[in-house]
């Protein structure tokens, strides 16, 4: 290689190294490697060169060209990396500032529990049905063995809307409506819904609350079936270690009737404030469907038997989420709602 080429290479490498930006590098590339660049000019001299020198010079020139291309590529890479680094460092953020977003929407705790309870029963083969909130005396009371002067009506003071029309005090009237509609067993339903009682509001009473009614009617339905079903429900909702206790109670539309309690979810039965030191928490009422109720709905009590239950959705929500005042459920304070 002759001196001239050596000089050219030195100049070119120096120029490449000195380039500080992509555009500068591009200029250098044009100057040396472009069509009319320095390398090109040398190429043009080849034609006039004696044959003996031409081959060696040509080879050297090509090699030089290759080296310069590599050098530019490398430099290009280097410059890009540098630029990226600079950009990244300029883009630093306070990563702890809040992000850009809409509020998270949440379902009300009552809805959550409503869904959870119905899912448990659907998994056990119960259809989910519904009934009207405006009821007649017949469905709400009479058909359920609660005649107008029944002492048990004391607990169910009602809101009246007019002749014979009232806001249902329980979801039990759905039992009658469902049996009438189905006409024949098997019946296996739950009916969640809103109920109304003329009770003044306090920490544990609300004139509006929610229940889920359950009804199973078929041949040979027994109290053992009632127990097993509700034990399974309690375990699904409150945990697999939960125990269930059944004790006699009274509802005019079931016979026998029972009240079901679960082992205390706080103390596990040792006795604490929540369970009033009894170890048990009352959770629902149930019983074997009274034969008169079956008759009222057009089913033959000699052929069929059944069990029914009513669960307070508000009560389950309060127990599950440790809510100590039922009014919180209807005040809709965001500080409350956003916890669910």
């Amino acid at each position, binding site marked *: 290689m002759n001196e001239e080429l050596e000089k050219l290479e030195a100049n070119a490498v120096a120029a490449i190294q000195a380039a500080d930006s992509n555009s500068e590098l591009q200029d250098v590339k044009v100057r040396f490697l472009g069509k009319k660049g320095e390398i090109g000019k040398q190429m043009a001299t080849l034609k006039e060169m004696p044959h003996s020198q031409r081959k060696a010079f040509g080879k050297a020139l090509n090699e030089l060209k290759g080296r310069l291309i590599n050098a530019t590529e490398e430099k290009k890479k280097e410059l890009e990396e540098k630029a990226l680094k600079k950009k990244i460092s300029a883009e630093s953020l306070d990563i702890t*500032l*809040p*992000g*850009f*977003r*809409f*509020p*998270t*929407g*949440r*379902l*009300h705790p009552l*809805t959550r529990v409503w869904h959870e309870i*119905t899912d448990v029963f*659907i998994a056990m*083969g119960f*259809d*989910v049905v519904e009934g009207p*909130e*405006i009821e007649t005396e017949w469905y709400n009371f009479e058909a359920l063995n609660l*005649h*107008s002067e*029944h*002492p048990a009506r004391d607990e169910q003071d009602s*809101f009246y*809307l*007019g002749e014979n029309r009232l*806001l249902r005090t329980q979801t039990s009237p759905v039992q009658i409506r469902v049996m009438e509609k189905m006409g024949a067993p*098997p019946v296996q339903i739950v009916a*969640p819904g809103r109920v109304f009682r*003329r*009770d003044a509001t306090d920490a544990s009473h609300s*004139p*509006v609350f929610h229940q889920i009614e359950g009804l*199973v009617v*078929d041949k040979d339905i*027994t*109290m*053992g079936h009632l*127990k*097993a*079903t509700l*034990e399974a429900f309690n375990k699904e909702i409150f945990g697999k270690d939960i125990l269930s*206790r059944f*004790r*006699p109670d*009274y509802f*005019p539309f079931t*016979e*026998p009737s*029972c009240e079901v309690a679960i082992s205390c979810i706080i103390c596990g039965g040792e006795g604490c404030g929540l369970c009033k030191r009894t170890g048990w928490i009352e959770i629902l009422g149930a019983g074997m469907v*009274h034969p008169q109720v079956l008759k009222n709905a057009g089913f033959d009590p000699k052929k069929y038997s059944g069990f029914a239950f009513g669960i307070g959705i508000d009560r389950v929500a309060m127990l599950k989420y440790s809510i100590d005042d039922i009014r919180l*459920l*209807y005040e*809709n*304070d*965001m*500080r409350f*709602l*956003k916890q669910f």
Partner: protein
Amino acid sequence: MQVPVEWLREYVDFEDIPIEEVADKLTMAGLEVGEIYPERFGYENSYVGRVTNVSEHPAKPGFWILTVEDDTRGNTVLTNLREFRVGEIIPIGYEGFILPDGMKLESMKFGGETSDAKILSEADVEYSDNAEVILPLPESAKVGDCVPDAIGITQEVFKFDLTANRGDCLCVLGIARDLAAVLDRPIKKDVFDFELETKPLDIDFSVTIKAPMLCPRYSGRVIRNVRIEESPLWMRRRLVCSGMRGINSIVDVTNYVMIETGQPLHAFDLDTLQKRAIVVRRAIAGEKIKTIDDTDRLLDPYMLVIADKTRPVAVAGVMGGAETEIEGDTVNMLLESAHFQPRNLRKTATGLDMRTEASVRFEKGVNPDTTVKCSDYASYLIAKMGWGTPLDGLIDKYPKPVKPKKISLNPAKVQKFISPDIEPSEMEGILRRLDFVVEKPEKGKILKVTAPGHRFDIAIWEDLAEEIARIYGYNRVPSVMPKTLIHRAVMTPNQAGNRKLREILAGCGLSETITFSFTNLKELTRIWPDKTPVAVPILNPLTEDHTHLRPTLVPNMLKTIARNRANSPDVPLQLFELGKVFMDPENPAEEDALCIGVCGRSLRTPTKTDYNFQLPVYYVIKGIIEQFIDSVTPETPSFRPADNVLYHPNRSAEIYLGKEKIGELGEVHPEICANFDIRHVTAVATVDIAPLKAILDREPRYEAISRHPALARDISVIVPENVAARSIEEIICRYGSDLLERAYVYDVFRGEKIGEGKKSVTFALEFRAVDRTLTDEEVNPIMEKIIFFVRDEAGGTLRTS
């Protein structure tokens, strides 16, 4: 119902069982013991003290200042009861002692002297109403004793929460009967085992039942030479422990017998009854009676009264009349013991708003078999205490004695229904323990069971099954999952739809609220200032706010927003409620409705400066509605100006899906916001969800997507402010040909360059063909056509950059 444990022990032995366990056994048999409490309750701060100093009050003549002490305490007592001697032993209550009215004793000053305790009277421990009589201490009382311990009123009391069917347990005897059955122990005492001595009857009196359906049995006995005095401490103590108060000898004895046996009794002054006649009849319209609580009552013809020849003298089974009440000068008393029909009695008691100890028992059923026995028992006690002389010649009118009902019981059925583990012999045993008569036929296995007179609630074999199960123990019944055939369990489409919608709404950033179903007309007028509100009225509302059923969810939404903003002024609110509303007062109907509410800066940005655009809340709620509908259906809603005074007239719209109006949205009119005390811009939307639920069920159908790239263009149009972007968009779409896939507002710009009262709206357009890549040559003529018609139809000018 509360029962002193000591009284129960008279009937059943259970000294060997801790009372908590006894209570638990009763509870598990259906007689729930809600509470066991020592009757000392409230009386803890008391002691038997010795008077150590007596001096006259320096300023108040007739008052003395006593120093009373025991070994550890000392108090100063001011009194004007009488002069006390040093060394006297007296009952003292000090700070914290609870008086009958529920107030706690406190120190007080009188005439410059401080008194920090008081001498306890009979009234202070509710033995009697007599506040002037110092509570007598028994000889056994020792200085330093707590007063209730000293007088022996500290004892456990069972407080029962009884079910409505067990009227038979509203007495000591009833609880004792069940307790004996539960423990399988005998009843030791027959309350009716006594010898009643009587003197011959020498006056005439009569009993006539004119309404035998309402009064199946009525008995009367004359007792002469009645003595009204204070009853002895033991009787008053039992009454107090049972939740009653001591009044006088005769009233106390009738109450005592009622508490023990469950039979309410009433005492008339026989000589005040006209013609000494008792007539049991319905009231006559317009008749009045002054009852012993000194209240005049207007009677209705459905009510049963006890009358004499001319007037009602008692509301049967509820309360006696003042004019025939026994007094200190009563010579001949008529003791009533009767049985009344529960239903009518309850209606009467409710109608007169008088629930008395007697009515509560009669309405749940009183045993007609023991009407006379209980009367005799009271007469026996009166004679024994020297409070009167029972005469013979008791009149007992019982025209149609109740025949005990025999129920056939198939033990195999009970086994199938309750548990196969209960042996028929055990069933028989349980029933007998509960006083049922069980007859076993020689052939077959069907038992004939007769319920005792006090068990009205037993009518069918299932009732017997419950009796067997509750004594056997519900918890011993084996749990067995019912066998069912495999079947598909489903929700109603309505519930499935509501559930899906709630989940979508939460997904749109809305939190769910649940409120009461009530409203009132005032509240409705606030949101509907231009019309007379119509809503379903509640005939017997509980409060003034809750007089009607809500026909709309809006007021509750606004109240929820107001309350939240008051509690947490900066909280962003994006809320929804999906609940029932009630229409048509004539023929009330219910349907599901949806309301959405937005208030505050719901979009959160890192800093306030980043939130540098003044986004009208209208656009926030519109965006939510668009997102919500987009989650439900591929169909795009359109929005037209709304005409509803609830809203800001220029920031509200009706929502259309196709040709159907499905709702409204908008910023709430500032005046209406002010009506609800909301100071921030608030938007609400109401949406009919029935059509949306119908769409939810629709399965999506895939439409082919082109594999060729889109060709994008944009166009900026300057139009007057009042031209809606949507109208330009419609023109673009109309002339965009099949190739225009999408056109949407990209930007709206205002400024000097554009001119006052005008805006520049930029639309982004995307063209695409299914089968080829589009070229400019194809799209250019379409763009020209669009530009022409936008100018022509919208009066817009094209803005060139």
